[in-house]
């Protein structure tokens, strides 16, 4: 039975890894996001988005953990699956002896210190530590910053061979912080998993620690029974190095429920057993101590977890703020810089989803705590009026879903017009590029003195900050019109409607 289960687990985890990764490729933005809902099934997003539509996913993940332990880590987590692939691949280059895992006591002090260091700032509204360590967010960054570029390159090679069928895809922004973060994390998990399996998951990963703490109360836990002859087969297969065969004990908090041990055992000596209330029956003093320790940790985990959720419910904003360096423009749906900072773990799902590729990871635009968070840049394009893709894909609730109609009035910033730089004023020639591109009619062309020229007139209340004017403004080196981001998004006014005059004519006019 465990054999079948294990293969189902493997197949499922690979499928999830592939679909999840596809979400971060450039072509995901041209098709409806069939799989964006999968992003919500990730632990950290569901925890942060608990009040904005992800409660169901969060509860399912918690229930799953209370039933069978860290199923998330073995099946749903993209980094977990990726590490398994790396371990498997690395074992091909190892001697038979080195290929076998050994039992290790684990590094509980490290795990829970990291967890506290990540969760306390999160309660205080600072997501940076968890953004750096959360496996899902990291996978998002790796996919969009590294894998996607590879796929784009392949696409563009194909497009140059078949120019009539495939189109060239422009590369997205180069973003130093996000690119470095992706490279470093990828190298770290490759090293960790190549050498010692799920070491990252059991020493650093905050999600692993949370779910590990909860696994303590799981209804079904892996156990070794009397059939065991200590052949060590299970130990040698355990990527978490958590099976202590000598004492017939399994460290449930580190077990990622991969089922490899159960599938490998020839004597049916290891398997899931109903474990409710069994923990109290331990007799030895040492057993009780371990038990107590486990319970303490579980309580700590639960406490931190409920702290995070409570802080979200109480809308506690970032307690510490560094000064923002530059003008940031939060994507539509972000509500405010504060909401974005409270929820975003910089997975870059929005960045990948943007068809115009104008969302880029911030450097210090939002301040240090907002590093790598999405900000809009109108250098290469502008925010498409009829598009709400970014707001639809965010699993964290950092960007709340907007309907197209809401998006069209969502004022993410306001344009600022500088007459002195304007071509019409400076060169005395016609231009009107900004008016031409403005989708809301915030800009209208009005007669300019007696020159016969027309000059832009800006109504900032109608402006939504889409940046079409900034993008197209030909004035250089300084643009005559730029968008300043709104710290709190507003609802823009609609341009005044004019009466339609039906004109009927019978002649050509010449």
């Amino acid at each position: 039975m465990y054999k079948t289960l294990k293969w189902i687990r493997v197949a499922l985890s690979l499928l999830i890894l592939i679909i999840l990764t596809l979400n971060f490729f450039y072509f995901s933005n041209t098709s409806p996001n069939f799989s964006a809902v999968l992003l919500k099934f990730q632990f950290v997003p569901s925890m942060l988005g608990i009040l904005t539509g992800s409660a169901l996913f969060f509860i399912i993940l918690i229930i799953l953990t209370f039933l069978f332990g860290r199923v998330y880590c073995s099946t749903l987590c993209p980094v977990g699956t990726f590490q398994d692939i790396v371990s498997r691949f690395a074992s091909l280059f190892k001697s038979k002896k080195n290929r076998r895992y050994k039992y290790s006591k684990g590094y509980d002090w490290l795990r829970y210190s990291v967890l506290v260091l990540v969760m306390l700032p999160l309660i205080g509204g600072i997501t940076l530590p968890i953004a750096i360590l959360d496996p899902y967010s990291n996978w998002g960054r790796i996919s969009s910053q590294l894998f996607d570029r590879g796929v784009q390159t392949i696409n563009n090679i194909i497009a140059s061979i078949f120019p009539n069928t495939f189109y060239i895809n422009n590369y997205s922004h180069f973003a130093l912080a996000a690119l470095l973060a992706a490279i470093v994390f990828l190298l770290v998990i490759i090293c960790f998993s190549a050498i010692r399996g799920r070491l990252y998951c059991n020493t650093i990963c905050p999600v692993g620690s949370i779910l590990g703490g909860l696994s303590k109360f799981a209804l079904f836990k892996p156990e070794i029974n009397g059939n065991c002859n200590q052949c060590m087969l299970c130990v040698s297969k355990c990527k978490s190095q958590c099976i202590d065969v000598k004492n017939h004990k399994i460290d449930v908090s580190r077990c990622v429920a991969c089922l490899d041990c159960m599938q490998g055992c020839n004597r049916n000596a290891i398997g899931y057993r109903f474990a409710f209330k069994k923990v109290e029956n331990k007799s030895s003093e040492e057993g009780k101590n371990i038990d107590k320790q486990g319970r303490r940790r579980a309580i700590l985990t639960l406490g931190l977890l409920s702290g995070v959720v409570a802080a979200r419910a109480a809308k506690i904003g970032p307690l510490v703020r560094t000064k923002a360096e530059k003008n940031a423009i939060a994507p539509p749906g972000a509500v405010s810089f504060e909401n974005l900072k409270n929820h975003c773990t910089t997975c870059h799902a929005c960045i990948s989803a943007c068809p115009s590729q104008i969302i880029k990871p911030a450097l210090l635009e939002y301040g240090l705590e907002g590093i790598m968070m999405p900000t809009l840049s109108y250098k290469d394009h502008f925010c498409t009026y009829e598009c709400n893709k970014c707001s639809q894909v965010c699993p964290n609730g950092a960007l709340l879903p907007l309907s197209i109609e809401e998006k069209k009035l969502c004022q993410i910033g306001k344009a600022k017009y500088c007459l002195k730089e304007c071509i019409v004023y400076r060169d005395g020639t016609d231009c009107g590029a900004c008016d031409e591109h403005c989708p809301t009619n915030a800009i209208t062309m009005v007669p300019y003195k007696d020159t016969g020229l027309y000059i832009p007139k800006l109504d900032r209340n109608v402006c939504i900050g889409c940046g079409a004017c900034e993008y197209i403004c030909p004035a250089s080196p300084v643009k005559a019109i730029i968008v300043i981001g709104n710290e709190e998004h507003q609802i823009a006014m609609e341009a005044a409607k004019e009466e339609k005059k039906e004109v009927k004519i019978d002649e050509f006019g010449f």
Partner: protein
Amino acid sequence: MERRGFLKVAAASSLLGFLGGGSSILRASEPASPPNINDLVAVMGGEPEAMYLRAIKEMGGISRFVKKGQRVVVKPNIGWNKKPEEAANTNPQLVAAIVKDCLKAGASEVVVFDHTCDSWMPCYKNSGIEAAAKAAGARIAFGHDEKYYRMVNIPRGVRMKQAKIHEEILDCDVWINVPVLKNHGGARMTISMKNFMGIVWDRKFLHANDLQQCIADCSTISKMPVLNIVDAYRIMTTNGPVGKGPEDVQLAKALFMSTDIVAADTAALKFFSQFREMKLSDVGHIMIAEKMKIGTTDLDKLQVSRIKM
């Protein structure tokens, strides 16, 4: 860097041009039209396809312009992510009718594209042009990346001496210019000549270097369209070129066709003026174009056919 280099070249060559005087030799010679064939055809009162078929008949048939085996580009205005009834783009039925006619005349391939202003994919789709042109047998080309454009010299250009032009235009045998008639906040009007901005990569250059002159300069490229067909089925009279809403659009049900790009724009402008006053002298690029001898605004000199359906 690129622009600075360009400006140097532009400055140097304008000096040369000044010294060299008139360069009428460089003008693409227009095929001498048989005496009974019209220079300009204006049709009103029909559906887009019917008006096109009627007008092209008056022009001597499409085979006058498209020969067997030729590669043809039909260049509509697909600049905006707008639906056909919003009149921001060329009418898709008209585009389809032209494509079909070219194929019937034996064109080996008909290509449709535009360098859009809004994101290209929704423009192609929501304008209805991609679907209509494909159904009619055309190939849709891409225009969203600089790689699809090649630098060419514009020796007669005054401000614009060089531009990156779309390769489909440069590599085709003939091309047909199919703009839509609209008011324009910057250029005042957008008709046939303004439609050339969709074959150029760097549009900002035009805006930054005397828009009206640059539009006229564009119409001096050696590869001029063999025919200009102005779609005035629905016209945008105010708040162009994008429009605010249905109040900006009038159902005018007209079409203009000419080999002379300036004449086509003049005729369309005079028609437009009946809906909203717009003087010829207000539209700088048409006036400049006449001065540069690109075409004529004097419609009385031409053989014009006016048809009411």
